[in-house]
């Protein structure tokens, strides 16, 4: 996990390699000793609750923030010393819409194209408008677009200079399901072309669309790997309960020793525990109830994350 590895030709299939990143604002540590490695051409999901340090980490990767400690490389360039070179090859889509609201779609794209020194800024902007399906809207002011179109335009602007790495900070927040699906199809198409994508999100279904995920809470990277690896690594024992009067049952079970989490899922209830024996003991009496059906199941990704968040709250706060 040393930085020298990144300069090594063998490691050139690594897009991001950082270790020990920490960042504090006004004495409050927002990111703590974060290490991660993202392979080229992969879609890497970055998950975590609000204020967990996702945005800060992304900003450190593209040179917008200087880490207090730690080091690493992004596309083979040192994140501390070669921020300018990284910026040329990275497309960063901010959480808040940050294109010029008082410029039109076309003018915004041409500005980006000129700034990156593309050969034919007008042509590049025109092609991108076609690709985004924004034909007929190119003269519209960016500020007047709907949420979905804004997000599309923002993605178009950051892919316009043909970057090698996309950093997307909660790109689908506040966007309808259809637009989200289109957006993710576009992300997968870009990754297929060899682009590396680091995307932060709150949505579990989006996490499952990633090749690899990492979960961060209170500035600590708690787990990472493929979705299956993360679920397998959680060591959660989960039962799905269905039947009558589940609301009452949920209230009864919550807080019992051995039961770490109770969450309703439609007409059923997820009951999870970190210690299998303790969980079995706690639910033994309820299993006899004939109105209820108990079934051993895999924890969902959400179960795993909520549990990680709950346990990390005890550790770090």
């Amino acid at each position, binding site marked *: 996990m040393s930085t020298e590895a990144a300069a090594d030709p063998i490691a050139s299939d690594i897009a991001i390699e950082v270790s020990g990143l920490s960042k504090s604002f006004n004495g409050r540590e927002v990111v703590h000793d974060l290490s991660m490695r993202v392979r080229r051409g992969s879609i890497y999901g970055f998950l975590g609750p609000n204020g967990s340090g996702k945005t800060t980490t992304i900003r450190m990767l593209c040179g917008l923030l200087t880490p207090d400690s730690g080091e690493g490389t992004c*596309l*083979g360039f040192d994140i501390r010393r070669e921020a300018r070179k990284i*910026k040329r090859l990275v497309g960063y889509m901010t959480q808040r819409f940050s294109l010029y609201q*008082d410029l039109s779609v076309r003018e915004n794209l041409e500005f980006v194209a*000129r700034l990156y020194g593309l050969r034919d800024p007008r042509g590049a902007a025109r092609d991108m408008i076609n690709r985004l399906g924004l034909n007929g809207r190119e003269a519209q002011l960016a500020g007047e677009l709907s949420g979905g179109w804004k997000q599309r335009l923002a993605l178009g602007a950051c892919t316009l200079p043909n970057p090698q790495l996309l950093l997307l900070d909660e790109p689908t927040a506040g966007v309808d399901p259809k637009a989200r699906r289109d957006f993710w199809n576009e992300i997968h198409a870009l990754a297929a072309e060899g682009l590396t994508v680091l995307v932060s999100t709150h949505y579990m279904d989006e996490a499952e669309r990633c090749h690899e995920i990492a979960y961060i809470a209170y500035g600590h990277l708690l787990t990472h790997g493929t979705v299956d690896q993360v679920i397998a690594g959680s060591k959660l024992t989960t039962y799905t309960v269905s039947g009558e009067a589940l609301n009452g049952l949920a209230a009864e079970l919550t807080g019992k020793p051995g039961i770490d989490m109770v969450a309703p899922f439609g007409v059923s209830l997820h009951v999870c525990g970190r210690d299998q024996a303790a969980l079995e003991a706690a639910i033994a009496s309820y299993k006899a109830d004939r109105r209820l059906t108990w079934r051993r199941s895999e924890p969902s990704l959400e179960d795993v994350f909520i549990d990680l968040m709950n346990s990390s709250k005890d550790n770090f706060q």
Partner: protein
Amino acid sequence: MNAARDPRIAARDRPFGFWRRTYAMLVKEFLQLLRDRVSFGMIIFMPVMQLLLFGYAINTTPRHLPTAVLLQEDTDLGRSILKALENTAYFRFTHEVRDVEQFDALLMSGQVLFGIEIPRGFERAVRRGERPALLVAADATDPVAAGSALSALGQIAQTALMHDRVGGEPAIPPFEIRAHARYNPAASSRLNIVPGLVGTILTMTMLIFTALSVTREIERGTMENLLSMPITPVEVMLGKILPYVLVGFIQATLIVSIGVLLFGVPILGSLIMLALLSTLFITTNLAIGYTFSTLVQNQLQAMQASMMFFLPSILLSGFMFPFAGMPKWAQYIGECLPLTHYLRIVRSIMLKGASLENLRYDAIALVVLMLVAMTIAVTRFRRTLD
């Protein structure tokens, strides 16, 4: 596709990158300016309004000033002196009082700016050749307002006495003030004010344009996007300043044209030199405004900083008060303000027909101030969000 994505191939490192990025910024700023209809209207109407307002309003030889008269005796001589005073148009007799207390109270409260007292036995004393005093009390809190009226007094009293043919020789009044403004009192003030207004209006508009430029990007959240792109602080600065140089030039042309056409101010010197040095002055102010925007946190602070700079520019540059009349320390501050140098330039070119040789010091001073501001701006520009 994969070859193009190799990180070590700097495919975008094409020549003239600096100018390309500056140009990108410049085009963007222009488009934003054109889109902002209100600002665009202000560019045209603000200087016109200000020039018309101040050009006609500011008058250092004001007339018809309210005056109180205390007549201790009612004589022909006294009346003809008052008549002569009223004829100068400087004085307007608004109050006639009977005692000194009333006289003092009117002056104290500011209801009158002047009080004229013709003492008891005045005419008789004049006839005897005793050279009695005609008392004139002026409210000197506004020395500009009082100055020219006072200077007119001596002359007037003398002519009044001559007109009455009292005594053999004309009496010499006890006040020795000369009326400087007698030949062309109204025009001289305007000739001085209009060129000064060119500089003052430009200072105000240029400062505010750029003072808001960086803070606006921060407040609208576009700065984060801009910083994530490969643009340098110098490129951002030039891209933001250059469109407004053209705007400032249009404004300056507008103001000077009105000055010449409406106020009859001449341009005795070279028009090209006036244009060149005005452009330098515009750029200097834009650089200073831009520097403010890199130092402050938000648009409100940027406005406040501009005002903080604007006020001394008006007061200490020689626009309002004669520069040579200020104490040394104030003159040093004045030398640090671009307006001071530009006022000398614009007045000298327009009114005296000065050449570049005469104005070398002030032109160099403007260049130095501009470079200092730009250096501070570039060093203070935050490349990160830290």
